């Protein structure tokens, strides 16, 4: 060897006979000496800087352009790239699954009338349905004077009352993209949020209004003449479709008229205040707030 820095053999304790044979065979290989003329020519070129010109003129074209930093072997590179992509996909899928908000479950049924979930009848007197999981995307139809409470644990409770027809959205995701969107075509719903809703947003649309809530208790009531949004707690942004919603503070309502008249802001009606208060009180424990 040119530079006999023999490695520490103690590092290689435990080598078997074949490995020892191989080690000694490699150590026994003599240095490969360059042809003297070649060496002298290269040395002169290196010392004078002419070697840089060789590179510029393509003098070393027989050898492809290398990189100074260590590169992985090509097969390895492709393998590791593939593994990295696959791992990233797995992580993305797992993250997406884990990021999902809690499932909706039936928290209560009452009143008179019928509840249809994707067209399947649910009896308002059947207590066994309490706790049943309802997947997002299900069409929820509540008729007459029936009421259905849907809860996403710790996040929110939605009370769907008679005459309401909606498609159940996913509850807000846990960590990022924490937005849930709901369209209500007709009827009346009440919403109250829990501690896990913090940082999330619920966007709702009706034929008349756009509503955006970030933690509150409120009701959305669709009537023939327009949409009324009553805010019991917190602040909800409400505006006509196609305009930027403006905030409505607690204790007030905003009425968005279907005929395009200017929205009306008023104190909330006593009856709705009472209903929302009762709704909030009955759901606080379910949301983990007591």
């Amino acid at each position, binding site marked *: 060897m040119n530079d006999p820095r023999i490695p520490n053999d103690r590092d290689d304790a435990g080598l078997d006979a074949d490995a020892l044979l191989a080690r000694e065979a490699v150590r026994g290989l003599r240095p490969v000496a360059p042809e003297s003329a070649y060496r002298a020519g290269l040395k002169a070129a290196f010392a004078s800087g002419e070697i840089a010109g060789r590179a510029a003129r393509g003098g070393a074209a027989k050898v492809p352009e*290398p990189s100074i930093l260590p590169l992985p072997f090509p097969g390895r590179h492709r393998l590791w790239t593939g593994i990295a992509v696959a791992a990233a996909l797995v992580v993305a899928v797992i993250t997406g699954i884990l990021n999902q908000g809690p499932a909706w479950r039936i928290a209560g049924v009452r009143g008179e009338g019928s509840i249809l979930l994707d067209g399947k009848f649910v009896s308002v007197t059947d207590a066994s349905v309490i706790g049943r999981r309802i997947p997002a995307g299900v069409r929820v139809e509540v008729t007459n004077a029936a009421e259905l409470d849907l809860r996403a644990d710790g996040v929110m409770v939605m009370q769907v009352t008679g005459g309401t027809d909606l498609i159940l959205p996913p509850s807000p995701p846990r960590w990022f993209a924490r937005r849930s969107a709901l369209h209500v075509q007709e009827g009346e719903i009440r919403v109250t949020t829990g501690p896990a809703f913090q940082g999330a947003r619920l966007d709702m649309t009706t034929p008349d209004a756009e509503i955006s809530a970030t933690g509150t208790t409120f009701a959305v009531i669709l009537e023939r003449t327009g949409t009324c949004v009553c805010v019991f707690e917190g602040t909800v942004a409400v505006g006509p479709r196609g305009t930027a919603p403006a905030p409505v503070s607690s204790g007030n309502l905003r009425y968005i008229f279907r005929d395009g008249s200017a929205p009306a802001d008023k104190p909330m009606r006593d009856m709705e205040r009472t209903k929302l208060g009762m709704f909030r009180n009955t759901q606080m424990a379910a949301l983990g707030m007591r």
Partner: protein
Amino acid sequence: MKIDPTQSTTPSVLDLEGFQRREPAALEAFFEHYFDRVFSIVARLLGNRTAAEDAAQEVFIKIHRAAHTLDPARDPGPWVAMIATNVCRDLWRSAPHRMERRSASLDDTPGLADRLTTGIADPERDLLRSERARLVQEAVMELKEDFREVVLLRDYDGRAYEEIAAIVGANESAVRKRYSRALAELGRLLRKKGL
């Protein structure tokens, strides 16, 4: 700057700051110190003298080009070895057909300097030794390239695991495992060749 030999493995004859400035005397000393070792390891890695000459030239082109990036406080040896192994890797990657040629030229037809290093006028012994070396090199060339690299860097070039890890861009534990597997594989190949 002259490196204190007690503080570094860098020979005190090397003027690394002059090398950084590409001063001819410093470049010449640098070449003199590293070239033979570089040529030898790339020749063993590539198994072919012609390819080794091309590769060694490319290594020193790269060294010249990157001279200003050298840290004069550190031993340039691993840096040089890294460039050399990368040049070989690029060759393996981009021109596998060039590697078809086997290693006979390395040990069967040594250059004048190689013959002189033998030192003893014993043709029969030289022939046996040359034949054995040819078979060993042949077996080395049958190893996977990453195996060949760690075996040669460790047992031919005499590098520590830590250095090899830095050179090949892997962690030390992976290098140890790779080396162990490579030696076992090489041992089997040598047995098959009757050594």
